[in-house]
């Protein structure tokens, strides 16, 4: 099954070309040009991963990451950035970013990261389901 990705960047031309290239590699891609729009889309749809520019107009990248993680903790977020300082990378990873790639990114590496992100998301979801079952069994099974 193909990976469903939400691509978020304020450069509309970048969104257009990236989504075309990602779709050519079998992914299903939706786009948003701001973190606010991405958050609104996440309320209605589920994705395997988000590929998001770290610095966009409006909501700050760290804040956007926090908001998305609080809304969808299992969602894998790959950050794309024009510049990647060690401090920002560490901060983003602490909040729960899956990976941080520098622009211009190699699409094959990005595709591999997305594939891995989907597998990681499945593991998180499976683990959560197992925990829920365990909890139910403990409560009702004695």
């Amino acid at each position, binding site marked *: 099954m193909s990976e469903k990705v939400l691509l978020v960047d304020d450069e509309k031309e*970048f969104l257009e070309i990236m989504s*075309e*290239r990602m779709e050519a590699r079998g992914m299903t891609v939706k786009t948003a040009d701001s973190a*606010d729009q991405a958050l609104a889309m996440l309320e209605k749809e589920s994705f395997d991963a988000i590929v998001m520019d770290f*610095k966009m107009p409006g909501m700050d990248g760290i804040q956007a990451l926090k908001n998305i993680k609080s809304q969808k903790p299992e969602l894998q977020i790959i950050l794309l950035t*024009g*510049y990647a300082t060690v401090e920002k990378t560490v901060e983003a990873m602490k909040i729960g970013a899956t990976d941080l790639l*520098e622009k211009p990114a190699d699409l094959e590496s990005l595709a591999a990261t997305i594939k891995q992100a989907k597998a990681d998301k499945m593991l998180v979801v499976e683990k959560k389901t197992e925990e829920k079952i365990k909890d139910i069994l403990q409560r009702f099974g004695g």
Partner: protein
Amino acid sequence: MADNNRYMDMDGTAFFGAVSAAVTHDMKNFLAIINENAGLLGDLAVNAQNRSLPIDPQKAGRISEKIRNQVARADTMMKLFNRFSHSMDHAEETVDVEEMVHLVAGLAARIIRHHGVCLTVTPAPVPCRMKAYRFGVLHLIFRVVETACTILDNVAAKTQKQIMVSFGMDPKVPEICVTLDPVPAPGWVALFDDCPKDRDLLDQVNMVVKKNNTGNGFCLYRIQPDHAYLSAEPKRQ
């Protein structure tokens, strides 16, 4: 040159850093788009080879045009950045303030956009020139724009926010007027010279600030006309 070196303190360096960060971020974005377009051309070639079909010339032409557009954007940005980098080359000289406002608007476009603000510059009715350090004038205008953006940050995000820069009518008294739309809440006091560092910047170029008559912005103007300023003793050592 000793006076010029005063700008090479931490604030001047921080300003240079902020502009460089914004410009290099823009450059990375241009490169990313060029990179993806080049990748798209590569994809076209691979597809054509796999299917033994010719490359769609219209599509290849469109991609090539997109690459050219990004190269033009990057070239414009690099020219602006080069002019900015050379702003420290000279001591006090005659500076075209309108030109400096356009330079800052181009260099800080990304920062302005991040505040959700649109900046427009009304052409000066008369030449707006003054004797000053170019780098100092750029720094001052940058801070003016940054302050105006910060004031507008308090306005609801979905409102269209605008900063309009215009110039005075008297060529002997250089004046930069900043109008904000929407008008900040009644009682706003965030005049540009609230911060001591900004007051220092104003001193460097011998300007003062006042709220405008309609209460929707502020104006910076030269304390004395240039001829008087040039013959006066330096304000600070």
